[in-house]
């Protein structure tokens, strides 16, 4: 390993619903250069980062978290036998309950992590958001669980239209009238399971804060941003960092109350009069985490330090006015790459070949 620190990172697909892994990797690469070895963990042979140059050193397929903690742990240990891992940074919501459950087993073989505890995960869940918001003194839109589509009409009467229907882990759609409630319910329930959550629609501007919690109530770093470009799915395609002490203070109260350990994203909404609402807490770094790094606050590096050394560096406030626009481009691979991933579950440690080589393989 040549003294390199090997870090496994998940959530490496930059598609229509971009995942945080690539931003985490770029942040670590910028700070640590060649002293870090990045091991990408993919759920699909077509996850885009598998074929992106200068991002991953090794890549492996892993089972979906729904396979359960035992299967997930077994696969990680298989990978650890091939590339000894020093730490793992999970970047997807659905992985966290599994990773939290197997974190001690991973730690026992030398794979460290910086994760919240099970109770913290539950306390930040959408179902308990109202309770948490009350505890930290921030308003939150009225929210109710929905277990079946029979209660949609009553929910419409109760919350009025439009209201927001949310999946238990992620995803949300605006219900603008009774006519579209059932189809949105079916779509979200099929994709994410039940219960869904119905939330009162509040008019205002959304601001998001990416945070790092040290597990003792401290928040070594946080960066606030406003989305400037949205995809059809409502995902940020562009954003700009801002300097709003009230938003940072609100996020700090959330981190303190939860004693959050690890990365997270606090979603807030500010009404025109300035009133702040707590909308959601995502239990991992967001896909835009590299914006924080670009603004001078490398939170993935801080998280890695917490995992490996038990303490994070102290960050200076982020520079406001730093923006990003996501740039979609094509990554290329060969049949040999897909072959290796599908049949052996790993990609050889080699950068994707240049286009000329791909073409030459098919020249008679």
């Amino acid at each position, binding site marked *: 390993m040549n003294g390199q620190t090997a870090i496994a990172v998940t959530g490496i697909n930059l598609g229509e619903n971009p995942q945080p892994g690539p931003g985490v990797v770029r942040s670590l690469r910028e700070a640590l250069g060649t002293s870090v070895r990045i091991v990408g963990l993919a759920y699909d042979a077509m996850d885009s980062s598998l074929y992106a140059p200068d991002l991953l050193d090794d890549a492996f397929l892993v089972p979906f978290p729904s396979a359960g903690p035992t299967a997930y742990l077994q696969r990680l240990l298989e990978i650890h036998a091939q590339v000894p891992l020093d730490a793992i940074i999970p970047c997807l919501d659905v992985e966290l309950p599994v990773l939290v459950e197997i974190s001690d087993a991973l730690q026992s073989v030398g794979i460290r992590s910086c994760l919240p505890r099970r109770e913290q995960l539950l306390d930040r869940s959408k179902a308990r958001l109202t309770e948490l918001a009350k505890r930290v003194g921030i308003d939150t839109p009225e929210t109710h669980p929905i277990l079946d589509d029979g209660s949609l009409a009553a929910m419409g009467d109760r919350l009025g239209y439009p209201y927001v229907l949310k999946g238990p882990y992620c995803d949300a759609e605006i219900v603008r009238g009774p006519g579209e409630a059932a189809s949105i319910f079916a779509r979200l329930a099929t994709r994410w399971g039940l219960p869904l959550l119905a939330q009162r629609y509040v008019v205002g501007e959304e601001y998001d804060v990416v945070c790092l919690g040290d597990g003792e109530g401290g928040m070594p770093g946080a960066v606030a941003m406003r989305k*400037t470009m949205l995809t059809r799915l409502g995902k940020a395609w562009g954003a700009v960092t801002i300097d709003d002490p009230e938003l940072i203070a609100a996020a700090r109260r959330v981190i303190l109350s939860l004693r959050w350990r690890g990365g997270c994203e606090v979603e807030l909404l500010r009404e025109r009069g300035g009133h702040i609402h707590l909308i959601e807490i995502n239990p991992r770094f967001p896909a835009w985490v590299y914006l924080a790094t670009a603004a001078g606050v490398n939170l993935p590096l801080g998280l890695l330090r917490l995992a490996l050394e038990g303490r994070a560096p102290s960050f200076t406030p982020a520079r406001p006015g730093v923006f990003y626009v996501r740039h979609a481009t094509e990554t290329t691979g060969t049949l040999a790459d897909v072959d290796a991933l599908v049949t052996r579950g790993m990609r050889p440690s080699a950068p994707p070949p240049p286009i000329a080589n791909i073409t030459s393989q098919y020249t008679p």
Partner: protein
Amino acid sequence: MSRRTPTEDTVVVSSSCYPRLEWGFKAEPKTGTMDTLRLDMLAVSETGFVFDPRTGHSYTVNATGLTVLNDLKRGEPLSTSLRRLQSEFDCPQTVTEDLLAFVEALHNYDLVDKTNPIEGAT
């Protein structure tokens, strides 16, 4: 200082995204100074690009708008801006209305809390 020729829309401010359309401001002639707290935070370039670090919104102003905005940031009363517009630009008589409209636009973008209409303006 040479006199500059303003564009047709003499004093304008426009948002690059998410423009607010609520126009609840009513200009009432009174004296006093503008609340400059929010203006102080604005980053204003020499070319008229304006960034509000509190909200992340950005705007552009033209040459006359930039002149007024910089006056306001310095805490100058609007009467000073009016005199400056009249002396440095070939402004028509209607510039007073444009100036008030500009301040109203600043208010609607939450950049100022209240206005200081020009003393003695009709």
